[in-house]
């Protein structure tokens, strides 16, 4: 299973756990980004999301994610990295992204997860569209 993927079906952690198996690893760390119901708007009002939709520049997104995984391995001495992002409709409470990594010791795996996520949110060409409970839609371009 390619450890860097865009998928259109639910992301199940159990399907990916074996991807980090390595006898030299002493730490597996996982992060799942999950679609959330409440969003605070810039005017302070809380908006209620009904559902979310993700789209990507698919070839470029995979290339960027692969570069990110390679850079994280070099920077933190990781043994393996998994990055899976879901596209299409993602109902509330489900994972839109899953990042996993393993290292010899826990510190590197712990440090790598936020580093990977921060860069994913800066550079990987994936976008989400909120559909609010009043059926208004909005592309998020922060």
């Amino acid at each position, binding site marked *: 299973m390619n450890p860097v993927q865009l998928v259109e079906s639910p992301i199940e952690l159990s399907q990916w756990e074996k991807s980090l198996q390595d006898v030299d690893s002493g730490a597996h760390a996982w992060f799942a980004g999950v679609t959330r119901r409440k969003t605070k708007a810039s005017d302070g009002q809380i908006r209620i999301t009904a559902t979310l939709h993700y789209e990507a520049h698919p070839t470029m997104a995979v290339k960027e994610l692969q570069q990110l995984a390679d850079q994280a391995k070099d920077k933190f001495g990781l043994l393996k990295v998994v990055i899976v992002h879901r596209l299409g409709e993602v109902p509330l409470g489900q994972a839109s992204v899953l990042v996993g990594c393993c290292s010899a010791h826990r510190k590197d795996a712990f440090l790598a997860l936020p580093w990977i996520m921060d860069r994913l949110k800066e550079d990987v060409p*994936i976008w989400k569209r909120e559909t609010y409970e009043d059926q208004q839609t909005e592309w998020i371009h922060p």
Partner: protein
Amino acid sequence: MSETHAAINVQLFAKFREVAGCDQLQVVLPNGLPCTADQVLKQLAAQLPEVALLIPQCRLAIDDAYVAADHVIDDLNAQFAVIPPVSGG
């Protein structure tokens, strides 16, 4: 096509695709080639005024890689994409 009437096809995503009503737009380059990535984005803003305010935050990608604003374009046949601020995760 003469160099003084060059145009490139730019892939559109997210709000840009929705506003344009298509996933690809021909961007006319009034001064032909060579031109810079920044000039392409500015021309795109002129063609899609509804999203012009987002253009300063956009980046141009050529053949699946970001290029700098001052990158000089000299190949009309490359794959161009405008990348608005991303929101994955």
